[in-house]
């Protein structure tokens, strides 16, 4: 099986995630970008697991999904809390924690 296309797809997805994370201000979009990066990794895990006939990568992708779900729970609640006080979901407005 040729995995090349999957790897290229994963790299494209990851690059989109990174770019989105760096250029967007909306916290929700940032989250989506992060999820995109995580899922590109998942895709690689699954691809290589299938290529080598090894289940370890499949298991790892499950772990990543569980962690991502947990992270979303915590992250979204923080974003909601910030939105309530600041009336904005822009990450550049939440910049109090600095020098």
């Amino acid at each position, binding site marked *: 099986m040729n995995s090349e296309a999957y790897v290229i797809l994963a790299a494209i997805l990851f690059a989109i995630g990174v770019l989105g*994370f760096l250029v967007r201000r909306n916290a929700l979009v940032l989250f989506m970008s992060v999820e995109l990066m995580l899922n590109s990794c998942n895709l690689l895990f699954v691809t290589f697991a299938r290529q080598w006939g090894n289940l370890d990568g499949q298991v790892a992708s499950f772990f990543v999904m569980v962690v991502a779900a947990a992270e979303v729970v915590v992250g979204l609640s923080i974003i909601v809390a910030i939105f309530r006080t600041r009336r904005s979901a822009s*990450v*550049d407005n*939440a*910049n*109090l924690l*600095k*020098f």
Partner: protein
Amino acid sequence: MTLLDTLTPVAPTGLFTSAWLMIAIPLVVAGLLLLAGKVTNAWGHLVATAASISAFVIAALLFVDLLGRDAGQRAVGVPLYDWITAGSWTIKAGLLIDPLSILFAMLITGVGSLIHVYAIGYMAHDPGRRRFFAYLNLFIAAMLTLVLADNYLVLFLGWEGVGLASYLLISFWQHKPSAATAGKKAFVVNRVGDLGMLMAVFTMLAMFGSSSFVDVNAGAASLTPFWATMIGIFLLLGACGKSAQVPLQSWLLDAMEGPTPVSALIHAATMVTAGVYLVVRSHEIYAHTVTAQLAVAIVGTVTLLAGAWIGCAKDDIKKVLAGSTMSQIGYMMLAAGIGPEGYAFAIFHLLTHGFFKANMFLGAGSVMHGMHDDVNMRHYGALRKYMPYTFITFAMGYLAIIGFPMFSGFYSKDHIIETAFEHQPVLGLCALVGAGVTAFYMTRLMLMTFFGEKRWAQGVHPHESPAVMWIPLVLLAIPSVIAGVVMNAWIGAWLAPAVGAEDPHLHWYPHLSLIGIVTTLVVAAGAFLGWWLFGRGPIPAAVPYTSNLAIIAGRNDLFGDAFNENVLMKPGQAVTAAVTAVDKSVIDGAVEGSAQLALGFGAGLRRVQNGYVRSYGLTMIVGLFVIGLVLVVGRLV
């Protein structure tokens, strides 16, 4: 005179095994009075006096025991315990009771007990009485350690102990800035002397591997002349500090700020004579170094003249006596510097001086007691009728110190002057002049205090002191008179084995010699001159103006303080200031500079924490990129 071997100590028996009690009793009482606090206020001074007297009783019993022995058995070494054991070093603490140390122990505890009794009266109304007696007992214990030690290192322990007691007692009235400063001065000047003492002990340890008297005496002959001289000079420096000899004399006059019983006990009779003891005890060292011996004699001669000079010019009764103490100790040092012929006479004069000077200091205290603590003799006058006991006992001390025939000082001082003439006529001549000056200033003191017309301040009504004060005066006046007659024939033979000299074979009556007669005439001339200047006319109440440089120098302690300040203190302060400046600019600069560097770096780095999540993200990604690059490059290489 030939040099004999010093006695080898024999093992202790009977009471000698308990000789340490002499030191322990006053020490324990001192600790008790200091630690138990107010509980002992009511009776503490009585316990302290009892402790001193019991030490005297022990010393007297040991003395009687020694008297009954053969001359060869009179040195008893009492081992106590191993003090320091380190590797191949073992320093044993022990006591040496021999003819020399037992005389000192008797003097210290005997005069010390009388002064304790006197102080019961003198310090009766002082709020710090308990503390005072505790310090006195501490002093007795330390001084006994000094003279009874069988080892220079143990001796040094006592040496520092008496220095501490002296400091505490000089600045006893510490609410007076002058007293606090005087105590500090005494302490600092004594440190200089202690340095010499330490160097001597170090040298002994390096040369002999031991600092015990026995080993040092045995090894002295094997020393090279250079090291013998060095040890001699180091010991002399130590002696100069403790005995207020030139050039370390400046503290003694200020030490008169302490209560008068202290001046009598520590700064006249006992502690300041420790230097003489040290030199006499180290006679085996000095036997092998003519240079150091001559240095001792010269220091003594210079001091005896300097002290007498200062004594002539002072109006403060205690400072006259202090100058006189310096001068008399100068005589002792001169005698000790002469060598084996002089050792016994140094100790002889030390004992008689201990009696008559303690007597006169206590007499001065009695006068001050009656004159509301005024020490200026220009405010005295005509006190002989109002203080009969003080006057008579003081007169006995006066006759003893000037060397009136048959009084104690006559014997002891004449011996020193005669021996000095035989040894070195120049030193003898100086000692002779000193005797005349002594007669002059003591006559001046007597006339200004007890004779002439009343010059009292208003509201002062002199009265005789209570019996608890004048009885010790009487008890001290008696030996001031008779000590010479009693001891003259005996002391030379008694001390001979301990100081490695031959018995000079003297008798109770003075032997007539040309120098003795000349000395008596010079003394008479000095006394006459004193009367001529101060006995005939009224004494001015204010210090008269003078352009006489000699008198100005005398009033200013021969500019000893000015010398110390300009030659030692100011350069010292300059060095300190320079070192401080270097410390502040260079060392602190380096330390604080590196701290500033770290701070600045941190302040710059802090800017990275800008609060923008996306810039953190960029940082992470750049970092990730770098790590990836490193991995790839690492793989390629």
